[in-house]
C-alpha cells in the first residue's frame, strides 16, 4: 500500500489562513464553492473551529472542478480578487452560505456585501493574476493527491476518513492528544 498522500506545497505566507501559526493542528481544505459537499463541510469546519479554538489553524485552497461545476472557477477567482483587498474569509463564507446562486450578478452582490471595492475586483479579474492563483492551487492539489472535493489535509497528511462532524472531531481530538 502507498502511504497516505502528502501536501506537497506547505502552508506559506500566500495562503489564506484563519488561526495561529503555532496551532497544534493545521487543517488544509481544497474546496469548490459550487460543490454541495463542500457546502456541508463548511458548516462542520466552522463548528470544528469553535471546538478547537486556538489549537486549530484553517487554510483554504481552491479546487474548482469545472467539468461538473461551471460556476466554480469564476467564484474562486472572485474570492481571490476580494482577497487582494484583505477580505478573503468574509467572501469565502458568503459564497458557501449562498452557493445555490453563484451567477455573475450574484457574485457582484456578494463583493459589495463584504465591503470590497467592485471596480478593483473587476480590475483584478481582468489582470490575470487571480486566475493564475486558482490554477496554481489546482496544480498543488493535484500533486498532493486531492481526490475529490472537499479534500482535507491534517498536518500535511490527506485525511481519507469521514468528514462528518463526529468522526472528524474525534480524529482531530486524537491528533491533539498525541504526546
Amino acid at each position, binding site marked *: 500500500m*502507498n502511504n497516505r*498522500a502528502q501536501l506537497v506545497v506547505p502552508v506559506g505566507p500566500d495562503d489564506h489562513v484563519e488561526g495561529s501559526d503555532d496551532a497544534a493542528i493545521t487543517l488544509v481544505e481544497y474546496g469548490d464553492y459550487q460543490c454541495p459537499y463542500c457546502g456541508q463541510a463548511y458548516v462542520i469546519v466552522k463548528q470544528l473551529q469553535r471546538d478547537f479554538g486556538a489549537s486549530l489553524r484553517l487554510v483554504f485552497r481552491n479546487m474548482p*472542478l469545472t*467539468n*461538473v461545476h461551471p460556476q466554480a472557477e469564476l467564484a474562486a477567482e472572485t474570492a481571490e480578487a476580494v482577497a487582494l483587498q484583505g477580505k478573503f474569509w468574509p467572501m469565502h463564507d458568503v459564497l458557501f452560505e449562498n452557493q445555490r446562486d453563484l451567477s455573475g450578478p450574484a457574485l457582484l452582490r456578494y463583493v459589495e456585501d463584504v465591503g470590497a471595492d467592485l471596480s478593483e475586483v473587476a480590475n483584478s479579474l481582468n489582470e490575470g493574476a487571480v486566475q493564475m492563483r486558482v490554477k496554481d492551487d489546482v496544480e498543488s492539489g*493535484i500533486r498532493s*493527491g486531492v*481526490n*475529490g*472535493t472537499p479534500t482535507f489535509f491534517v498536518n500535511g497528511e490527506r485525511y481519507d476518513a469521514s468528514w462528518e462532524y463526529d468522526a472528524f472531531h474525534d480524529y482531530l481530538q486524537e491528533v491533539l492528544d498525541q504526546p
Partner: protein
Amino acid sequence: MTTNTPDTLVSNALQPGVQAPDFSLLAAPGQKVRLSELEGPVVLIFYPADWSPVCGDELSMFESANNLFSDRGAQLVGIAVDGVWSHVAFKADRRLNFPLLADFHPKGEVARAYGVYRDQDGVTERALFVLNAEHDVAWSYVSPIGISPGVDGALRAVEALS
C-alpha cells in the same frame, strides 16, 4: 479466492515491466479504441462504475489534470464494465474529454487481463496503470475500492518516463 476489503488489499494487478495486454473496446457506439493504435504514454483508469460518487470525483480530478498529462504526451483512458450507452451519458454529464471504454462483452475481459477484475462483485478494481510509449507497464496502483486514489501517483509516474 481473495477478498478485497479497504483494509486488506491483495492485488493481482500487472506489475511494472510487463508488456500491457492489447485490447480493443468501444468508446462510443461503432467507435472502437485499440490500445496498440494509441501513441505515446497511456494512463489506464479502471473504475468500478459510471455514476457512483467516488468514481465521479476520481474522473473529475483526472479531467482537471488532463492538461498536465497531455503536456507530457500522455493520454487518459477510463475503463469500466458498464455498457457503451451508459458511458456516453456519463461522459457527457461529467463533461470528460477523455474516452471511457466499455469492458462489457465479454464482461471484464480486459480487467481480467490486467489482474483487476473483482469476481466477487462483478466490477473492476479501482486501479491505475501508467504505460510508457512502448506500452509496457511502468507503474500500477490498486486503491481501496471506496477511496478515490487522486492523480498524483499517476502524474509522477508519467513525469518519470521522460
